[in-house]
């Protein structure tokens, strides 16, 4: 039986995030801006954000099977989650990162 996940913000877990962008293309810029904002507001002190520019280093896309940019990957806490786009839908992102203050009913 899966325990319902209940979180009180901010999460006590340490978040490890990777954002894949392509230089200063418009959505990459926005995605970065948005993710930084979210991290500052909801994860202050509990996160590591790594920004990878696959326009500069295409081979880094391979390991994680990145097929489009911008892509955000949450490595920790598990499970691995993947988001794509300019990250402007904050609610959806927060939900995906389990940072919403409500229980989910399976």
């Amino acid at each position: 039986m899966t325990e319902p996940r209940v979180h009180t913000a901010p999460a006590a877990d340490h978040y490890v995030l990777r954002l894949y962008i392509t230089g200063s293309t418009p959505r990459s810029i926005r995605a970065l801006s948005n993710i930084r904002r979210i991290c500052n507001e909801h994860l202050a002190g509990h996160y590591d954000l790594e920004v990878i520019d696959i326009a500069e280093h295409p081979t880094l896309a391979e390991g994680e099977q990145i097929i489009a940019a911008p892509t955000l990957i949450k490595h920790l806490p598990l499970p691995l989650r993947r988001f794509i786009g300019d990250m402007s839908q904050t609610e959806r992102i927060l939900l995906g990162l389990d940072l919403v203050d409500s229980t989910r009913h399976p």
Partner: protein
Amino acid sequence: MAPDATIRRENAALQMRLEEAEETLRAIRGGDVDALVIEGTSGPQVYTLQGHDAEANRFRGEMLAQVSDAVLAIDGDQSIVYLNAAAERLYGFTLAQALGRRMSDIFETRWEMPADEQAAIGGLESDGEWRGEAVHVLHDGRMLHVDIGVTRLRKANGAPNGVLAVIRDVTERKQHELAVLVSEIRYRRLFETAHDGILILDPATRKIVDANPFMTQMLGYSRAELVGRELFEIGLLQDEAASQEMVRRLNLTRQVRYDNLPLESQSGRHQDVEVVANLYDENGHPVIQCNIRDITERRRNEDHVKLLMAEVNHRAKNLLAVVQAVADQTAKYGDPATFGARLSDRIAGIAAGQDLLVRNLWQGVEVTDLVRVQLAHFHELIGTRVHIDGPAARLSAAAAQGIGMAIHELATNAAKYGALSNRDGQVHIAWSLSTSTPPQFAMSWRETGGPPVVLPIRKGFGQIVVGRMVEAAIEGKVITEFATSGFHWSLTAPAAATLASAEPGT
């Protein structure tokens, strides 16, 4: 059969993966991505998708990458949305590191004047732009002087949409400006305090535009009286033609030197000056600087030295003539085999006498000093076998030379044949000044205890030295006696001809 929980967990994971895949596809189709990654034969290839303004973006991107000024853009939330390659280099952050961060994370802004900050904010508000200077402190602590231009960015509907900043590092220029300022201050200080006169002229008009305090002192004119005049008007060059000539030469060679110019101050005081004029380029304008040095003192010294040198030359030539004469006479009168030794000996005697004269600056020589010098070979006998006795008496140069040579000769003979040639012989040397009118100088050399006295066979130069020569030198009289008790030599002469007078040079 797997437990329920595991299956449910696996289902949830699969569900998530599906959702993500659908999301990805939707995003791609919806144009919500910038680029796609396609697996190529040599690795993943990133394909940037072109939007309708992608062309403009790319052009702008390429252009901005090459611009040497740093370009930086922030959005309405003060987050950095763009920085070009020059900005990356200037601030030491890559694009990836800077994007989304605030400008204050990259550098700290400081203002030279507090008012500048107000002006910047105000300008941006009212005009939508501002240009000025500030100081940016980098993350490593380095301070940069920057020239910044900021422009407010607007959306199509006119709403503010962030700020674009174009930043130029002017640290080097500022340092250069400071160096120039320091240099100017230093120059100004030198100008004011120099102990040479300095005049600054305008090459176009040949007129004085500035004069330092020392120059005003040299000439007796105030600075105001000097400005606007030409050099010939203040007595430095002869006439207008000379002035023109100087400028003409300066234009050719950039430096002109006058070793010796006459200069009369306003009070009529005459000076000799050395003038060095240089044509400089000062911030693009040509300017003439004249350095004027008073060499009156130096010239006086040089003239005096020249006079002394001529005197020394004259005396030296005289002395050489004397030596030559002694050489000739020694040769004429003596045995050729011993000529060299005898001549050397006599020259040594002359040299010793000369030393005394020079030491006393030709003011005369004490009899005691002269006798001791000419008896230098026998100095250890003085007091035991050689006795010197007489009052203080200063001999003239001519007397010193004549008497000195005589004493030298007498000593040489005494050592060869007389009282100093055996172990017991004695020599008594004495002199006196009489109080008779006119006063007389008398000197005697008496030998005792030597080997039996033998009369000289022929007249040698030595006899002339102790006889006629010394007589001629001091208008005196010599008596030589070859007594059985020992050789005796005595000299009398007028004190006036023998003693040094009060004035030098006799």
